[in-house]
């Protein structure tokens, strides 16, 4: 029970830990990431890729990154 509430607490707040948000950067360009509220993902503006956050865990493997189109329709699943 405690475990479930811990996960929910993470999702409710900033969706990623404060520790992680301080040290995470884009795996390809090494530039800081921006948390996008709309898609609940981490966006790397320099190269225009968004990385998903599954279950409160950011997935920063380059293969998981979705390329953002210019009109920012990143919520399209593919």
């Amino acid at each position, binding site marked *: 029970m405690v*475990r479930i509430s811990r996960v929910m607490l993470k999702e409710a707040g900033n969706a990623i*830990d404060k*520790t*992680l948000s*301080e*040290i*995470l*950067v*884009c*795996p*390809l*360009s*090494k530039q*800081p990431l921006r948390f996008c509220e709309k898609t609940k993902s981490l966006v790397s503006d*320099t*190269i*225009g*890729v968004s990385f998903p956050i*599954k*279950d*409160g*865990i*950011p*997935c*920063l*493997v*380059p*293969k*998981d*990154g*979705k*390329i953002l189109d210019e009109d920012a329709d990143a919520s399209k699943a*593919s």
Partner: protein
Amino acid sequence: MRRINSVYGRVEILKRVLEKPTKQSHAFSASRSFSTEGAYGGGGESQQNSSRVKIFDRDLKRVHRDRAAWLSRNKNDTFVDAVAENLLDRLEDCKKTFPSALCLGGSLGAVQRLLRGRGGIEKLIMMDTSHDMIKSCRDAQDDNSIETSYLVGDEEFLPIKESSVDLIISSLGLHWTNDLPGSMIQCKLALKPDGLFLAAILGGETLKELRIACTLAHMEREGGISPRLSPLAQVRDAGNLLTRAGFSLPGVDVDEYVVKYKSALDLIEHLRAMGETNALLQRNKAKFSIFLSRIFSVLTTIYDSMFATEDGTIPATFQVIYMTGWKEHSSHPQAKRRGSATVSFTDIHKQFGGQS
């Protein structure tokens, strides 16, 4: 498939950005050097990945690790625990404490479980390429005194800012990277000055019995050989890797573990539970199950006849190479400049009475 290439292709845009003189340009050029093949900065190649040799299929490795997370969920593996224990023991040999630590994939669960507050770690970040593995680590977390964060990432593309962690531990994870020097360079960049890098990788002698038995069984049944064991580092290479990555005070030592199994099938089950099964790009991609059943009986016979011990168990060797390196800091002893000696050998000779 298109998506994969394009994400790496986004780095092309990064290179164009680099040409514009911005005030961050020197920060950019520092980060260019983290890949040893010069793929990110050199000469404007359009396909930067073609210069890197791909030996391992990283996507297959993720799948293996997902399966391993499921297979090893209830049992504690003595071999993996022994390696993790050895690695973590080295923390007690250091006077320094490491408030923030990063744990790279491999046997994450063992490191987390056996840490027990050594090294003064307050913040632990666990990273692995497999999502399931990270989830099972999070579920198994029973020690809340250390603030643990979880992250899915690739060791070859480390998503960690420069100079941000005090300690990086990797227990049996780095021998599956395609570009080991590049990964180590990225680890070095992620470390704070006077930070420690501890890694354990499998060495060249690992599973030599299995390698011999597989080759013989293959030749007998199929008439050819397909690579079944990954190319593994030699001890002499480990030292070179550490110096090439730029670590100061490098240290390498080797340990050999012989694990005994009741049968060859147990060995393969163990390898699967550790996520160490074949992921070479060159592997024989024919239907593995049919293939395995054909050579399997020959494999077990050869293994038993060549390597079995008196009590009927079969041994398998695991050679583990432990590497330690520190990120340079002013407090580290440095070699003196040539020609700066203040005492000559003749003086020392005279001092000690000229015994020869």
